[in-house]
């Protein structure tokens, strides 16, 4: 690789920093804690700056190129979000401050809760979960608490369609439920017969990703919700694909009982190494009492002259805390800013453009690549990264070759129900020229696959490192940054 490790640029006895003279009495460390075999890189400040600046130039990010990573909604994160999040009142407040001194922050959180509830047709929202998967976990714990509170203790199963996000079964298992898979029908919807066959009074709920991981709107959604409710279960909506629905469909109106939001996808807060996730959860009226504690609320009504006093409340049957303090506050500020910039009509425009972009790309690619569930898609689509007349070329080869053209590869080998899956999510923030360039390159790569498959097998050729040995990386887990034998 072009850039050596920081250990490789280390030079013995080079010093980058001098400690000031000690102004307290010196105390010896306990003997057992002293070690002399811990090598530290010995570098000057400039060495450190150059090293990490050079490494940062090797990053690929949405600010440097197109990033059509399916299921991840890698949209552009407006820079004004960053400016707002750095306002001193937001950036320098502390979660342990008396509530009277952070009323602006609490008002923002309260309003964001209301907005998210309004966007999705839910009655209450917690901002606490720190990522989508933790939002799911919160939701499934609420499902469990809901049944337990009713004395209905035999419900030990959660149903999960095979077109759901992979975190759904993990969440259910972690919450102590048995996971039961439901197959997908020929159109890419939940197979209603398969669902009916397993619905009984041991089902606690069903987790539905809609649009699902095929990028398709589940046309059976109302019937799925009705069947699960009739059996006494609750319906959880995985909100990771909410970008396709903003301002058009409210999951609460369709009958979903719980859902999570990915602020770091739909609401433009950074992700993919750029910042922490944030996974607020919305619930319908009958579940509001189970929301995590603490919840922001108005604790003293205001009047025309005095603003209300915001504070924290404890829902009556709360499942407890999901995180220390109040969640990823900085992400809430960014999402709040994004929603207020767009307003209701702007949010609808986002969904419409995201869906239009995906359908445009699909239309340009469907004659080159096989699309197994080929119908009008939502914000993303899944095609096979495999060509009948280039049998040795796989989705992975196509993904790697895309990097040579300076595109981030799409999600590959997911969902599992599509052979050699390439899952492409263009997002609404890309223009037609970029989409065309991407489609042109994919069509060119298909051509290369037929005429020069070796070019793809050895790709990428123009990146700082070439094809990585994924098998070795998965098997030889070296998690220590310090390898004395190899320095």
């Amino acid at each position, binding site marked *: 690789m072009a850039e050596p490790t920081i250990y490789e640029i280390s030079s013995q006895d080079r010093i980058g920093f001098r400690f000031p003279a000690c102004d307290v009495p010196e105390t010896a460390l306990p003997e057992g804690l002293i070690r002399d075999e811990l090598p530290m890189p010995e570098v000057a400040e400039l060495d450190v700056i150059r090293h990490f600046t050079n490494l940062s130039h090797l990053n690929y990010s949405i600010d440097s190129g197109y990033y059509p990573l399916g299921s991840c909604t890698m949209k552009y994160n407006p820079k004004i979000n960053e400016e707002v999040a750095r306002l001193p009142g937001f950036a320098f407040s502390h979660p342990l401050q008396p509530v009277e001194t952070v009323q602006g922050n609490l008002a923002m959180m309260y309003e964001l809760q209301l907005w998210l509830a309004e966007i999705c047709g839910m009655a209450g929202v917690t901002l606490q979960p720190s990522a989508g998967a933790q939002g799911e976990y919160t939701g499934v714990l609420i499902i469990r608490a809901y049944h337990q509170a009713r004395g209905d203790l035999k419900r030990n199963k959660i149903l999960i369609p095979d077109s759901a996000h992979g975190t759904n079964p993990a969440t259910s298992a972690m919450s102590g439920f048995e996971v039961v898979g439901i197959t997908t029908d020929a159109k890419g919807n939940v197979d209603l017969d398969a669902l009916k066959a397993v619905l009984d009074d041991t089902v606690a709920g069903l987790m539905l990703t809609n649009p699902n991981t095929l990028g398709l709107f589940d046309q059976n959604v109302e019937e799925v919700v009705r069947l699960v409710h009739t059996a006494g279960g609750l319906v959880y909506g995985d909100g990771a694909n909410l970008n396709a629905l903003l301002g058009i469909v409210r999951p609460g109106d369709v009958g979903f009982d719980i859902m999570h939001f990915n602020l770091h996808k739909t609401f433009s807060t950074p992700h993919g190494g750029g910042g922490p996730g944030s996974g607020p959860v919305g619930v319908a009226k009958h579940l509001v009492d189970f929301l995590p504690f603490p919840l922001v609320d108005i604790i003293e009504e205001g009047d025309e002259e005095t603003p209300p006093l915001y504070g924290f409340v404890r829902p009556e049957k709360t499942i407890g805390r999901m995180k220390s303090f109040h969640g990823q506050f900085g992400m809430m500020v960014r999402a709040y800013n994004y929603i207020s910039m767009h307003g209701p009509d702007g949010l609808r425009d986002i969904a419409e453009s995201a869906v239009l972009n995906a359908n445009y790309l699909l239309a340009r690619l469907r004659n080159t690549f096989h699309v197994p569930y080929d119908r009008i898609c939502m914000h993303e689509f899944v095609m096979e990264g495999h060509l009948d007349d280039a049998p040795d070329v796989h989705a992975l080869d196509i993904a790697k070759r895309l990097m040579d053209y300076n595109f981030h590869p799409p999600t590959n*080998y*997911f969902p*599992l129900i599509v052979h050699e899956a390439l899952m492409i999510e263009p997002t609404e923030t890309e223009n037609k020229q970029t989409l065309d360039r991407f489609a042109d390159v994919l069509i060119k790569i298909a051509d290369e696959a037929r005429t020069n498959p070796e070019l793809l097998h050895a790709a990428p050729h123009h990146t700082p490192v070439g094809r990585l040995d*994924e*098998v070795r990386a*998965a*098997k030889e887990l070296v998690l220590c940054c310090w390898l004395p034998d190899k320095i």
Partner: protein
Amino acid sequence: MNIPTNLKYTNTDEWVLVDGKTATIGVTDHAQEQLSDVVFVEITVSIGDKLAKKTTIATVESVKAAADVNLPVSGKVVAINEDLPQTPELVNSDPYGKAWMIKVELDNPAELDALMDAAGYEKHAKE
């Protein structure tokens, strides 16, 4: 695609070798091809366990995906391939041999009738 004719198969890509009252279970050549390089195998049952049909007995993970291995028949576990978790690549190189996962004593040999023969599995795998 290698599909030995002396084995029985499930539509979820497990194979069963029957020897008297004992059945040996593993995953098929087709399954390992789909998974690509296997990097992790965990057998999640123990000797002596009495298991119902379709119980998950192992998890197989490749660089592409993770998959459960389910018991095609009900029975009591009488042997476990202790070496396999240390050498998961055997699932790729010898799926019908050294990569066997567990052996069970059959509860009900009639359950075998519901499984596919090699021809049936070949047809299934090509779909």
